[in-house]
């Protein structure tokens, strides 16, 4: 858009956008800064923004005292395991609905979506009791199962919307050249599906990593992922701000990086394709 005041307009919108971005991001920045302070400085009034005694002792203490690595491994196993299993179940289902749709495909899809609408708290009681009876409370397997089931509808939906965009002509062409279904899957479909698979994987890792209803209710120590580990800092009336900040920074850093990579797929995944 050619306008007279273009430069001024760009300057104004740039400055205000950066200001707004900075304000929204500030709590995270503040947390990271606090994680490098001593406990005394973290609590100090007036607060110091940059000119404090930078230290990494909090990170060391967090690992020593509360076994951060143990919970991080739990998070990786639970988020990774539930996402991979969900993908294994969802890929065939989404493939089937995208490439061999029937009259009922739309109903099946909407029904799957509706299972995601069930509030977790509505089934907390039976799940808790079943998990207790099967010895799944505070076990990684128990959390993998529940997060896998909880995210399965989203995984199927995302894959479905990606698969549907693969032009069918190509598959038919391959078939005409004599490709069997398995060859078609491996050599034609898979390479084209990789970007969709990758973003589905990424988004679901994020959702599972941050899930904080089932993890808080179904695990305490052994299987506790980082969400629960951080929650344990709420009890002794928050006196260890620097350590809380260090633990929090460690807990969100990996997922923040993944999240930034997947931001373009986020909209589509979370709106079930309703906004693209």
């Amino acid at each position: 858009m050619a306008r007279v005041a273009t430069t001024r307009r760009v300057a104004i919108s740039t400055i205000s956008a950066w200001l707004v971005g900075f304000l929204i991001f500030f709590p995270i920045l503040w947390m990271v800064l606090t994680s490098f302070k001593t406990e005394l400085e973290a609590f100090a009034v007036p607060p110091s923004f940059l000119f404090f005694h930078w230290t990494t002792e909090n990170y060391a203490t967090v690992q020593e005292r509360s076994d951060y690595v143990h919970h991080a491994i739990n998070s990786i196993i639970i988020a990774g395991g539930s996402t991979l299993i969900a993908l294994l179940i969802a890929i065939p289902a989404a493939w089937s609905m995208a490439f061999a749709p029937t009259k009922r495909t739309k109903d099946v899809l909407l029904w799957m979506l509706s299972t995601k609408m069930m509030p977790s708290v509505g089934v907390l009681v039976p799940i808790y009791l079943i998990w207790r009876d099967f010895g799944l409370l505070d076990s990684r397997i128990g959390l993998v199962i529940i997060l896998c089931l909880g995210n399965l509808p989203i995984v199927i939906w995302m894959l479905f919307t990606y698969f549907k965009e693969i032009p069918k002509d190509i598959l038919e062409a391959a078939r005409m050249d004599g490709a069997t279904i398995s060859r078609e899957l491996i050599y034609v479909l898979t390479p084209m599906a990789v970007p969709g698979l990758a973003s589905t994987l990424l988004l679901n890792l994020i959702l599972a990593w941050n899930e904080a209803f089932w993890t808080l209710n179904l695990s305490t120590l052994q299987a506790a992922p980082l969400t629960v580990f951080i929650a344990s800092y709420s009890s002794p009336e928050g006196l260890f701000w620097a350590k809380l900040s260090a633990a929090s920074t460690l807990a969100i850093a990996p997922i923040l990086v993944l999240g930034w990579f997947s931001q373009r797929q986020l909209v589509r995944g979370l709106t079930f394709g309703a906004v693209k």
Partner: protein
Amino acid sequence: MSAHAPEPNLAAIPHLAPDGRASSQITEAGPTAPRQMQLLARALLTPAVALLFIWMIVPLALTIYFSTLHYNLLDPETQQFVGLENFRYFLTDPAFLASLQNTLVLVGSVLGLTILLGIPVALLLDQPVIGRSIVRLMVIAPFFVMPTVSALIWKNLLMHPVSGLFAWIAKLFGATPIDWFNDAPLFAIILIVAWQWLPFATLILLTALQSLDEEQKEAAEMDGAGAVSTFIYITLPHLARPITVVILIETIFLLTVFAEIFVTTGGGPGLQTTNIAFLIYSQALIQYDIGSASAGGLVAVVIANIVAFFLVRIVGRNLEA
């Protein structure tokens, strides 16, 4: 889609070499796939459908069953059928009305805040901004922070009445610092949750804005429409659908806000920050009252389903387009 660039050549092959075998298969693979394919497709779909069906039906059936029992885990021997007694108890409990009200206030306020702030932020990011991708990253970041972290960081580092940053800012301006979690606990939680969901609203609105036809806006401007009327008559109607989607999806998640309350207030002081999700949790896992918690769970399911009904319709309409 640039990764798919070489593929169209493949699609062109049959047109270049249309021998008899290929064309006969074209008709065969027409609108209805071959029978073998259909069977395979059904076999591939079945595990997912079966699992989701079990996942939906079994816990729900059990919840319904438990909701008709007098059943407390502290006294598991005396299970007894009580009909609708649990519902009467749950729905007439003053805690229910309080928590229903808190739930509605929480959902409504967070929706209002995220949309009213999300629209200007999205409009701003849609402008020519130097370093837009970096600003985008900063705006979207809170969405990736796990709920327990954002709740505790806000509660301690920012909202603490003595050493929090907000208290320091208030004192800079000569105001009395607010003791957030004592004086306005629900509002404090609303702020935290709104901060987490603002990126979601912004991102969806921004995506929609970017698909708005630039020519249409330019035409309106050439016709002499000012920025305000362009916004009201062109941009806002275009945003109606994404706003609806934001409202519905956020509502589904906000109805069951849990972790933020769990780590900051534990539902208190009193019942001031107890929402339906937290009330059911405390009845189930603190008071061990399985019957009453199940009845409450069903109430939550009904409320969520009302919202879900509309969301599924919107998404379904989009599926046909």
